[in-house]
């Protein structure tokens, strides 16, 4: 299958239907025991019409495009989430009767924006930028009488949600939020919004990796790391961050992080070990906070 060109889904779907016409319960069309060619074709055509009318064709095409844009590792669970979100945003007929309140609407909008933002990893820049654009529109089209646009309050709320869901400790990300937040009634332009989102996601990944790093340093019995060791790693990290002098795109910090070869780190840690003196412990929180501070120091404040 790998080498074959894949036909468009609609064409292939029709082929599938032709192969098994008797199963589809299109009443009155397939009632006879022996399906004739023309009947089978008619059924297939009929079903294609049906799929178009119900909106399935359009829905699947959009879903497929999203899959191709995001290239998720697990496309099937991606699709499950995709349709789940779609079901939430457009309740089925007969579903929720009255329109939801303002607050609920706002929450739904935030949820949808978040969902779009998470469709693609930030390193897939084109897909990520597209999704940022869609999220921005979701939040801006507020439906209220006020002029459309995204205000600082919603933007800050979104940033907080992302950080909270990213499971980074609050004190670690708080300095970043202070730096990239806007005032509540300020209008947030798209480029500020995009930079904010990107920085936020990159920081979360940075913190996740710093956390993995700490886990290696951690003494499993004491649940803390040696301070000299932690400091040596942080210093190496700082050195690498300063080495990349292009201070524009936050992604460069990640690149610099990858420059931290294991040998470099090992050397630093070895030096710390050799100069062994009685040392105090360093907690995970402190390590993460210090590591994040190195990153956040490089972020340009908004406005």
């Amino acid at each position, binding site marked *: 299958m*790998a080498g074959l060109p894949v036909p468009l*889904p609609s064409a292939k779907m029709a082929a599938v239907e032709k192969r098994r016409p008797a199963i589809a319960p299109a009443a009155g069309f397939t009632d006879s025991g022996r399906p004739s060619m023309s009947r089978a074709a008619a059924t297939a055509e009929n079903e294609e019409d049906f799929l178009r009318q*119900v909106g399935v064709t359009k829905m699947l095409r959009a879903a497929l495009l999203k899959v*191709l844009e995001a290239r998720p590792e697990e496309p*099937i669970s991606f*699709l499950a989430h995709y349709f789940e979100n779609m079901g939430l945003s457009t309740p089925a007929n007969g579903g929720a009767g009255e329109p939801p309140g303002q607050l609920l609407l706002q929450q739904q909008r935030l949820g949808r924006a978040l969902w779009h933002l998470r469709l693609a990893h930030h390193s897939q820049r084109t897909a990520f930028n597209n999704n940022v654009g869609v999220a921005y529109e979701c939040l801006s089209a507020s439906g209220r009488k006020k002029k459309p646009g995204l205000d600082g309050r919603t933007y800050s709320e979104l940033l907080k949600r992302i950080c909270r869901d990213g499971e980074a400790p609050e004190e670690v990300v708080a300095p970043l939020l202070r730096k990239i937040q806007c005032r509540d009634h300020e209008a947030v332009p798209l480029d500020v919004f995009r930079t904010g989102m990107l920085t936020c996601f990159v920081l979360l990944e940075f913190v996740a990796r710093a956390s993995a790093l700490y886990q290696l340093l951690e003494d499993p019995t004491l649940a803390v790391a040696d301070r000299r060791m932690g400091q040596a790693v942080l210093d190496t990290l700082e050195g690498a961050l300063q080495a990349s002098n292009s201070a524009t795109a936050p992604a460069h910090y990640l690149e610099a992080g990858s420059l931290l070869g294991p040998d470099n780190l090992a050397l630093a840690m070895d030096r710390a070990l050799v100069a062994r003196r009685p040392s105090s412990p360093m907690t995970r929180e402190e390590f993460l906070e210090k590591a994040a501070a190195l990153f956040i120091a490089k972020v340009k404040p908004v406005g």
Partner: protein
Amino acid sequence: MMLSPERLALPDYEYLAQRHVLTYMEDAVCQLLENKEDISQYGVARFFTEYFNSVCQGTHILFREFSFIQATPHNRASFLRAFWRCFRTVGKNGDLLTMKEYHCLLQLLCPDFPLELTQKAARIVLMDDAVDCLMSFSDFLLAFQTQFYYSEFLESVAAIYQDLLSGKNPNTVIVPTSSSGQHRQRPALGETSMLEGVEASLFYQRLESLCDRHKYSCPPPAVVREVLGNVQRLTFYGFLVALSKHHGTNQALGALPDKGDLMHDPAMDEELERLLAQIPDLVNTVTASPEASCLPSRTPHRAGFSWRTLHHARKVDAESDGSTEETDESET
């Protein structure tokens, strides 16, 4: 989320094919057309949500047609897992079943499951002959798993084996003394077994290149190497038995727990007990074993019947091999 550059670099259609995205999308549409009433009630998005969730959970293969069940590696693994979960109690009770009975169980989950496949699995357990013997659940399951999951691969293996047997391979000379020097270090062990089957190193060479170019799932090459590296000569069924019993095969497939844990699933046992406790009247009939509905009732004495002797007989078989597999090969 970790990055996987390989996935991002693939052309669109290859990415979709590799992950069988279109297979599931098509099937979702077929299912939708078969359940039009559902969508008028719940909406299309909800229908698709549930469909794709069930694919993720592996419950989408229950009671589906065979062509779908074998359509993707994920479907095959899901089916194996479902089979194990549903009928694990057979193994727990120590019941031994015949090939036909296992086939009944398979058909409970997949009504058009082909008998041929069950037969092939049984031949792995029983070393080709005596297909109506009794088998333990875990023996059958492991053999069945290999046969079902790797069936295309095994077909190619059978063809290669035939080639080697009939000396079609240009490099092959079946006479042991003429094989390349380094394989002749060890003295021949059993004189008789030397003449059966094919030479392992040649077989391995052919299988290695098969694994390289095979477009279907293959067992991990390291496992194949290990299986073939331990012997000088082996027969087709000798290979299949070793492959299906190798824990690396089971691990790579990932559908079932380790052999030792096949009967061990405390979470589900608890769940079962909880359910049974709710229906005290049914306890006796339900615990009697799940196959009760489709199989002839098993008389108690059979549970302990000749498990040891059967097992022993099979071991003997494995060592001094059956000579009938050639005839068997020709029919596959």
